[in-house]
């Protein structure tokens, strides 16, 4: 049998003292047969190299001169593309291969882009957004005609997201332009490999792709890390600062630790706290998405060079190559998802056959339960995470415009092509036509402004973009990431520190201090769109709050926690403070039982609260929150809002909620929720994203950055106008479909309502109960706007005014 590995590669492996992995060989053999592949391998298994080897071999055997793009590599992170380009270039130089490698991302300069257009590289590393942009140019067909391989890294992180939809559509386009193209998907271990295989497959069918599964490394070694005697385990909170000294002890014990946290705010706080107690001056760094790119790069380099003992990181270090020989990870705060936890644990997996070491540090008494549950789930390899859902229509709208910008198209051919992308295999012709109609003229029931269509149709039936200006405008708005508006933070000297959420910035008063990049800054004021600061000091700095989607506990992990709570026999694993807390709850209120629903009502800060201890996960609680507030509105309680945590739900209202049994009646599900939900802030947020991605409203406009706040207002008003006059408009359908992902299907709530019927344990309290304390601090509150509650608050204020007026 012929050696699949050419001599120059064999020598290279040997010189480095490496042996080629079986899965790397399997990838080479599949590529020789022209097969597309899905490689599932844990971190540290030479996954990326396995993806590139077939292309490197092909290019060494049949050099392509002058260069044409032979292979495209797409990853979700710009930084990852850059980093892999560097290491791949070194490999190619060491072997002396005639292969040119370049990146193309949002950071690529205009000069470089122009040069790439003239002399393309053999291997182009890029992101979904930049690939989409390349496909929108009229020369796209020529650029990609010689393409042989498409490598998609971190498939698990892309499939099921809007960026994933965008990439799947681009990939379908590439297969049309280059029919001989084979694809390679690289993925971490996931709960739904069949769906991921279909996602990568060029036909959208899981059977048309070769699956290569690398062997899993050794079983990870997971344990809990509780605060030591210098620390404390609070009732509530998510930050985990009480574990600081215990974490430091663990860092001192090993060579390199990644301390994973759940939010940027938590990263800032914990970093600050670690340094406060870092008497040995251990080099500890900080890494999160709001730091300047330069700062992040410095930390990555220091890590790779072995200069750091620990890095406090958010999901910014979840993906990608190893930055160093990480020996252990510490997860501080709730793990939330088993799959994510397993991937984080994999970061400490630089030697595949040694067990990864992971410590879980709960941030509150409640989180001890969740950490215990996650430990069990990891041992049982019970991965969670839903399979990727159907492709979104706003992304399709953007892609149709991308295609139109590259040249005229026939709708029938485009429909067939789109359906070869797995997320869109079930797309109906009606939905396709409606989206096309939207791209063409807005797709409104009122046919107006004939002169101003975006696309026009020629006598052959092909669609064209009306003019160059529209294309130029559109290209500036390609992309599916709708950021929470962020503002740059600079010192008066002009030094850039990082970014903070616009909302947080709007709450700052001159003189306030806040933490960023582990340092304290004093807010001076706003200058244009920049936050001006000076170095500050304060005992009580504020912590920047960042918006965006917070991860919620997976359904399977939530049910493990519920089972634990309902079974006092299992409590012996819980530390004493947790048992004390549950005990206090038992004395002041009741404990939630296995087959009832504990509902507490109490006044708090001038409002009435209703707290339901459901333990069904945040998504289910979100839906229940909508149902309950609608009921409260009907009952005249004047609800003002609700907040859902993974464990509980709270609604607050102007008046005391009564008749709790009736409120939770099963027929609640029969209520028509459509109108009530449509009015919610959640749907409005969803619509804003859909409107931006689909191109209804613009994100960038030449010469002027529209104020983001203004944009929010106008998308809200557009939403109202559209709902009233075009309730079946394709973008409203897209919004409802998107939102349905966030709201758990009603089956789960139906089952709960059935289970608890006649078993509602209503406790009326005079103040907040121990169990609901964490909920009072929960972020992500949903307001009920324009309801009877607001009218009543306004009427009260008006009456107070009249009184003062009369007495004055």
């Amino acid at each position, binding site marked *: 049998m012929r050696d699949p590995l050419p001599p120059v590669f064999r020598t290279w492996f040997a010189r480095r003292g490496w042996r080629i992995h079986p899965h790397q060989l399997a990838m080479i053999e599949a590529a020789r047969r022209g097969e597309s592949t899905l490689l599932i391998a844990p971190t540290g298994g030479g996954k990326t190299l396995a993806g590139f080897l077939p292309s490197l071999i092909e290019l060494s055997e049949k050099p392509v001169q002058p260069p044409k793009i032979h292979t495209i590599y797409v990853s979700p992170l710009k930084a990852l593309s850059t980093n892999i380009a560097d290491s791949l270039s070194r490999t190619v130089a060491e072997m002396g291969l005639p292969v040119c490698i370049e990146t193309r991302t949002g950071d690529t300069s205009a000069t470089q882009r122009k040069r790439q257009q003239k002399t393309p590289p053999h291997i182009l590393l890029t992101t979904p957004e930049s690939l989409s942009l390349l496909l929108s140019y009229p020369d796209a067909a020529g650029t990609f005609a010689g393409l042989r391989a498409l490598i998609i890294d971190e498939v698990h992180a892309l499939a099921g997201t809007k960026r994933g939809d965008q990439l799947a559509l681009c990939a379908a386009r590439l297969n049309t332009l280059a029919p001989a193209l084979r694809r390679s998907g690289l993925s971490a271990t996931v709960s739904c490999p069949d769906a991921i295989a279909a996602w990568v497959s060029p036909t959208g069918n899981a059977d048309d792709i070769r699956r290569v599964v690398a062997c899993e490394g050794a079983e990870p070694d997971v344990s809990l890390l509780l605060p030591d005697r210098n620390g404390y385990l609070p009732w509530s909170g998510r930050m985990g600062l009480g574990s600081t000294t215990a974490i430091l002890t663990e860092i001192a014990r090993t060579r390199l630790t990644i301390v994973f946290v759940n939010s940027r705010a938590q990263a800032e706080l914990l970093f600050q706290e670690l340094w406060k107690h870092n008497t040995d001056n251990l080099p500890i760094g900080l890494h999160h998405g709001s730091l300047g790119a330069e700062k992040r790069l410095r930390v990555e380099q220091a890590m790779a060079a072995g200069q750091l003992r620990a890095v406090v990181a958010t999901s910014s270090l979840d993906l990608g190559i190893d930055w160093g020989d990480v020996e252990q990870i510490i997860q501080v705060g709730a793990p939330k998802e088993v799959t994510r936890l397993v991937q984080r644990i994999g970061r400490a997996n630089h030697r595949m056959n040694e067990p990864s070491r992971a410590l879980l540090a709960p941030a509150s008494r409640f989180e001890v339960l969740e950490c215990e549950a996650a430990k069990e789930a990891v041992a049982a390899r019970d991965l969670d995470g839903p399979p990727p859902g159907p492709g979104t229509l706003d992304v399709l709208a953007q892609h149709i415009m991308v295609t139109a910008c590259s040249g005229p198209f026939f709708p029938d051919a485009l429909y067939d092509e789109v359906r070869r992308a797995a997320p869109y295999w079930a797309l109906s012709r009606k939905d396709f036509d409606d989206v096309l109609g*939207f791209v063409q*003229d*807005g797709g*409104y029931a*009122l046919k*107006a*402004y004939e002169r*101003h269509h*975006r696309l026009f149709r020629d006598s052959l039936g092909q669609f064209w973009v*009306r003019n160059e*200006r*529209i294309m130029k*405008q*559109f290209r500036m708005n390609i992309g599916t990431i709708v950021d929470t508006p962020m503002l740059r933070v600079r010192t008066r000297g002009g030094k850039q520190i990082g970014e903070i959420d616009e909302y947080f910035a709007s709450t700052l*008063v001159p003189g306030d201090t806040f933490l960023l990049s582990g340092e304290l800054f004093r807010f001076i004021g706003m200058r244009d769109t920049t936050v001006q600061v000076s170095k500050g000091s304060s005992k009580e700095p504020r912590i920047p709050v960042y918006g965006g989607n917070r991860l919620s506990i997976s359904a399977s992990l939530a049910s493990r926690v519920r089972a634990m709570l309902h079974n006092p026999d299992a409590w012996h694993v819980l530390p004493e403070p947790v048992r004390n807390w549950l005990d206090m709850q038992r004395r002041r209120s009741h404990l939630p039982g296995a087959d009832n629903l504990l509902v507490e009502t109490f006044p708090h*800060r*001038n*409002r009435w609260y209703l707290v339901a201890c459901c333990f069904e996960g945040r998504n289910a609680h979100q839906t229940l929150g909508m149902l309950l507030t609608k009921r409260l509105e009907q009952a005249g309680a004047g609800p*003002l*809002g609700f907040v859902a945590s993974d464990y509980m739900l709270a609604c607050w209202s*102007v008046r005391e909620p009564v008749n709790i049994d009736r409120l939770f009646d099963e027929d609640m599900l029969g209520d028509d929720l459509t109108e009530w939900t449509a009015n919610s802030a959640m749907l409005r947020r969803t619509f804003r994203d859909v409107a931006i991605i689909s*191109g*209804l*409203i*613009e994100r960038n406009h030449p010469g002027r950055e529209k104020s983001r706040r*203004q944009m929010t*207002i*106008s998308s809200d*008003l*557009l939403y109202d*106008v*559209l709902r*009233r*006059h*075009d309730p079946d*408009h394709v973008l409203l359908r897209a919004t409802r479909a998107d939102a349905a992902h966030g709201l758990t299907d009603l089956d789960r709530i139906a089952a709960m309502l059935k289970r608890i019927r006649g078993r509602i344990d209503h406790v009326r309290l005079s103040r907040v109960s121990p169990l609901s304390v964490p909920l009072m601090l929960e972020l992500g509150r949903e*307001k009920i*706007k*324009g309801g009877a*509650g*607001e*009218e009543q*608050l*306004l*009427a*009260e*204020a*008006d009456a107070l*005014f*009249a009184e003062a007026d009369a007495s004055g």
Partner: protein
Amino acid sequence: MTASPVILAGETLLLLPEGAVFHPAGRTLIVADLHLEKSSSRREAGLLLPPYDTGVTLERLTALATHWQPQRIIALGDSFHDREAGERLLSADRARLAVLGEMAELLWLTGNHDPVAPADLPGVWQAEHQEGPLLFRHIPAGVVPPGFAELAGHFHPKARVTLRGHTLSRPCFVMDGRRLLLPASGATTGGLDVRDPAISGLFPGPMQLWLRGRNRLFRMTLRAGDVE
């Protein structure tokens, strides 16, 4: 819908929950910042916003005119979103404007968005207007002469208030003894918080606010320097 009477320069005015003002003595209906054809203003650049805002705004105005039967309707400027707005008007909306022109005399004040009158529309165009002690203009003037009061638009005032820990934001009227700012009447117009110096700077003393509710207005006061 419940109107709120106020007295300005000795004249009784009715503030309406729809965001308009009715002056019973002059039988005048006053609205501000209609921004007609705002949604169609960027169609040439390929932006295809829902084409319903002009119709919605004009229907609301027609309903008000039907109810109050004014002799005259004064639009306080920025009635049309841009210079070409008149050319883009759909025939149905032109018809609505014609009906309004039959119902009352239309007086359009010029604004920064519509400094020039669109062609072939009913009504009279003027930069400013006066009825007794009441002065009407788009952008408030620096000084209002003694004995007079001013009605103006331009700023789209909104008030953000926190009541029992709940923060809400509503379009509102802003008034002191000399000046009344009207909220915007356009269906897709945004707003500016009354604490913004552009608005609060016009009111040296306390600002009296009337916030729009479902079917009434809610009264509040805000003093300069009041921050939550």
